[in-house]
């Protein structure tokens, strides 16, 4: 098998893989929101509520602010 054929197969396999992934992803996103296991849209608020004093939507556990030392 020459390089061209390998390229062609790789490209084809990749496209199929990417399409399956993408559609799987879409289904996954919408289904998990419908079932209530996740709420994605709450992250949209990140841009609106962005003062340094406002409460994070999810605390980053590894955050160690200096002024609390």
């Amino acid at each position, binding site marked *: 098998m020459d390089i061209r054929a*390998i390229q062609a197969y790789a490209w084809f396999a990749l496209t199929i893989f990417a399409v399956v992934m993408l559609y799987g992803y879409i289904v996954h996103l919408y289904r998990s929101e419908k079932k209530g296991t*996740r709420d994605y849209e709450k992250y949209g608020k990140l841009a609106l509520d962005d003062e340094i004093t406002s409460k994070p939507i999810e605390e980053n556990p590894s955050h160690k602010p200096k002024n609390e030392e």
Partner: protein
Amino acid sequence: MFHWLEKNPFFFAVGVFVVIAFAGLIEILPNFAEASRPVVGLKPYTVLELAGKEVYKKDNCIACHSQLIRPFKSETDRYGQYSLSGEYAYDRPFLWGSKRTGPDLHRVGNYRTSDWHANHMWDPKSVVPQSIMPAYKHQFTNIADIDTAYAEALTVKKVFATPYDAPNGTKLGTLDEGRAAALAEAKVIAADMKNKDVEALVAKGEIPEVVAIIAYMNRLK
């Protein structure tokens, strides 16, 4: 599953990188060996031609001129045979350009003379009255950088095994030989240009940029 990525910047970055690097791997890498094979009979540029290519780059001719004849009848009628990949094998960088404010130059050596170029570079309107190209008068006084051109030839010979000094090929030799060969070539062109000042400069051993760029354009065939 994916939601996890947005909370883990490191893996997020890795994910992005893999996705964007993929296209390059598949598209570009595999063709490298094939696309760099020269056409039969292609000779590396002489030192003077390389110096001319430097002038072409310095004054950024690619802003308005392409060097790529596409396989259409209208283009082959106008410019000559369509371009082949192997013709560019010694072009580092490629100079295809992306805009034709002026005409294609890939085979300009077939239908323009040194004399014509000399007039055209001095004052484009003298040969093409409606031309909007600027005059490049400074090329008649700026001296071409032959040493750097030699350095480039030596570099591609050493690093990329460009076949200089092969039988029936382009001779490179030592730096002094390179300078002498460039000057000899320049004298022929200067004589063709019918420009006294240029001839006087070349007789003194100094090669103006315009001579070098004409050498380069005459080579484009």
